[in-house]
């Protein structure tokens, strides 16, 4: 009896842990059959819905249960063995760690073979988009100012106009955003200008965000003059919908981080056949040559970048370096010191 109680208690605890998952959005795309493909993703529903509909054109019998969570939640869920058939995340480092640590199933198909080498790793993890980190500005608030082309320009601009930009600069809170942390660490690796930029931004009481979407909204509304390290794909999507034309995307000329949105099949997945079919659809769409009507950019855009040495962030074990707790602690301490100067 006592064991039963214990078991029951454990069940309650696990259920409550499961419900503790902070779901941002969820929708069921019903199919004609019984099978349900459970997808856990960090991609906003409105951006990803066309892809699901495209998949259901090929496989109408499969229902798709699409759940949007943060990248760190997704990482934790998959690590804890949650029952999902597919995990799609923009945090490549966390995705990579899942694959490296054995939380992903291998998948092989002809569509996968067409992916360039840098867009897959060990038949475990596959890139479906290549998305740059960009600076988004509000053109109203930039009237009379030169548009920065490099990080040096940006540092000079912020330093020279502290009153203009005070409280009007936004960036990721790298402590809570997996993608923000990835962009920040890659910036750190690429240039020392990043830390000077952080110092300058820190003096301007920067606004910290969990997600690209809110940052872009605030730039659009004029609350922010500038947002640094925003996901270009989201910005482009909002820009297209923005009627005022007050937003502009700036791509830094010194270098641009290109993130790969990746997909993997978690080990406990049941519906692996459907998951594989979905990967085929996503990678095939990802390899398309023309931008087309799709909300997320194609992998082929990263091809020319790769040859120029400004390729996408490399899918490899080096991604795990910044995930090391000691490294993370050191990095966050430095970051806090720079950004939070009250």
């Amino acid at each position, binding site marked *: 009896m006592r064991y039963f109680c214990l078991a029951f208690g454990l069940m309650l605890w696990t259920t409550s842990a499961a419900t503790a998952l902070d779901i941002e959005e969820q929708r069921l795309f019903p199919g004609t059959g019984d099978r349900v493909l459970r997808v856990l993703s960090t991609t906003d529903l409105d951006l990803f819905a066309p892809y699901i509909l495209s998949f259901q054109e090929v496989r109408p019998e499969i229902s798709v249960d699409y759940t949007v969570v943060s990248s760190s939640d997704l990482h934790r869920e998959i690590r804890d063995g949650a029952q999902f058939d597919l995990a799609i995340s923009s945090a490549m480092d966390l995705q990579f760690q899942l694959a490296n640590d054995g939380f992903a199933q291998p998948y092989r198909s002809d569509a996968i073979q067409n992916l360039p080498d840098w867009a897959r790793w060990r038949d475990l993890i596959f890139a479906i988009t290549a998305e740059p980190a960009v600076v988004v500005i509000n053109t109203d608030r930039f009237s009379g100012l030169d548009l920065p082309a490099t990080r040096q320009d940006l540092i000079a601009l912020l330093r020279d106009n502290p009153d203009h930009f005070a409280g009007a600069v936004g960036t990721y809170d790298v402590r809570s955003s997996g993608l923000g942390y990835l962009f920040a660490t890659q910036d750190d690796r690429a240039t020392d200008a990043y830390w000077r930029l952080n110092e300058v931004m820190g003096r301007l009481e920067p606004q910290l965000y969990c997600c690209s979407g809110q940052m872009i909204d605030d730039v659009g509304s004029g609350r922010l003059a500038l947002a640094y390290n925003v996901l270009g794909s989201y910005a482009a999507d909002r820009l297209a919908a923005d009627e005022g034309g007050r937003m502009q995307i700036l791509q830094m000329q010194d270098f641009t981080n290109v993130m790969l949105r990746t997909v993997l099949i978690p080990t406990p997945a049941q519906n692996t056949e459907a998951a594989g079919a979905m990967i085929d659809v996503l990678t095939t769409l990802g390899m398309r040559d023309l931008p087309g009507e799709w909300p997320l950019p194609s992998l082929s855009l990263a091809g020319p970048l790769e040859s120029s040495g400004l390729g996408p962030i490399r899918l*490899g074990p080096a991604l795990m370096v910044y995930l*090391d707790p*000691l490294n993370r602690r050191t990095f966050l301490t430095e970051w806090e010191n720079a950004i939070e100067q009250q």
Partner: protein
Amino acid sequence: MIKRRSIGRRLTLLLAAVAALLSALSWTMVTMLAREAAQRTQDNVLAASITTISETLRSEQGEIRLELPYAAFAMLGAISEDRVFYRVTVNEETLTGYSDLPSPDAGQQGQVMFGSDNYRGAAIRMAATRRVISAGDGPKLVTVTVAQTRDGAGAIAAELSQLAAILSVAFFAVAVALSAVVAATSLRPLNEIAAAVSRRGPSDLRPVQRAAPAELVPLLSALNRLMDRLRNSIRRSEDFIAEAAHRIRTPLATVRAQAEIALHTAQGDNDQERLRRIIRAVDESSRSAGQLLDHATVAFRTENLTRGRLDLAELAANTVAAVEPTASMRDIRLHLDATQAHIDGDAILLESAIRNVLDNAIKYSPEDTTVSLRITSDPDEARLEVCDEGPGLGEAPFDALTERFRRGANTAGIVGSGLGLTIVAEVLAAHGGRLELASSTNNERGGACVTFVLPSA
């Protein structure tokens, strides 16, 4: 039944077996070396990785601090798509990394230790190094372990092994082809000697004079000794026959002379008839003995042919003159139609051959008939045709008639040895000529035509 085994095939098979063994051996060794090389490559990168990590170890405010360098993992990712695990321990307590990752056996400080194990369901290769760092409360032993799955090294080894397998098979195929060539080349002298011996004529028993490889010299000299013995033995039996014939002929002549005398003095038909039979039998025996002697002479002389320039017409005339008395006894006319026909040959043998043919013709011809000889010649060949009006040669084939002691099917009632045409054929063969036998077409009464065909001189 004794199974016939070809030395060539056996040699090829043996060489091929050796090649197969060597191919398999080289493949195994290359595979082992490839595995070893791939593992060493991986070990080197792992060692570089842990060295890079352990160099960032430092003590800060009494605590061990570590900054995992980007390069430490980037170099692992550069060589293969292997999964990477790491662990840093301070006094056996995990500082960071995968706390359940095994570590190779302890080595000396600063030394890099390697080991293989299984982790998270995959075979891993790991490297570890130890460093002592002074922190607040004294020195602490820090162990850095980095592990990598072995798929990349395995794939390289497998690829090289496959390449080695293809090369080994190719090597084997080439070796088999070469083995066949080697076997054929080695056996060529043997085949050449065999061919030389089998090319020889039926009575050629001269020693085989050929340069032979050392291994074949005993066989060759044994063969030559055997042929020598054989030749001597044949020579002795020919001599014996000649001697025997000669010895028989003399007493036979005496018997015949005595019988002639007895015939003249005998009274009464019965006695006379009996004596005539005796004389006929003695004649026949004498003729056979003569032929045996001729045959022995031919056998001896063909081996050491005395050649000279001869006129076939002259030979024919001489022989006709010699047999004229015998022919006239039976009212048989000998008609010689001769032109000059020069040939190269042994006069005694050729005369003997012509005489044998004429003897036959006279013997088988009915009384009061003609035996005609005709000589023709052209730049290539000289021909002597002897035709009679006798019973002919019967049904073909005529070739059998030149065999020793073989007589025609229609010779019953006439005594003969069956040696005549044999002698003729052997003589002509020794001169590079041939004997042609045909039924006569010259007259209605039929008869046989025997033609000598000899190369013109």
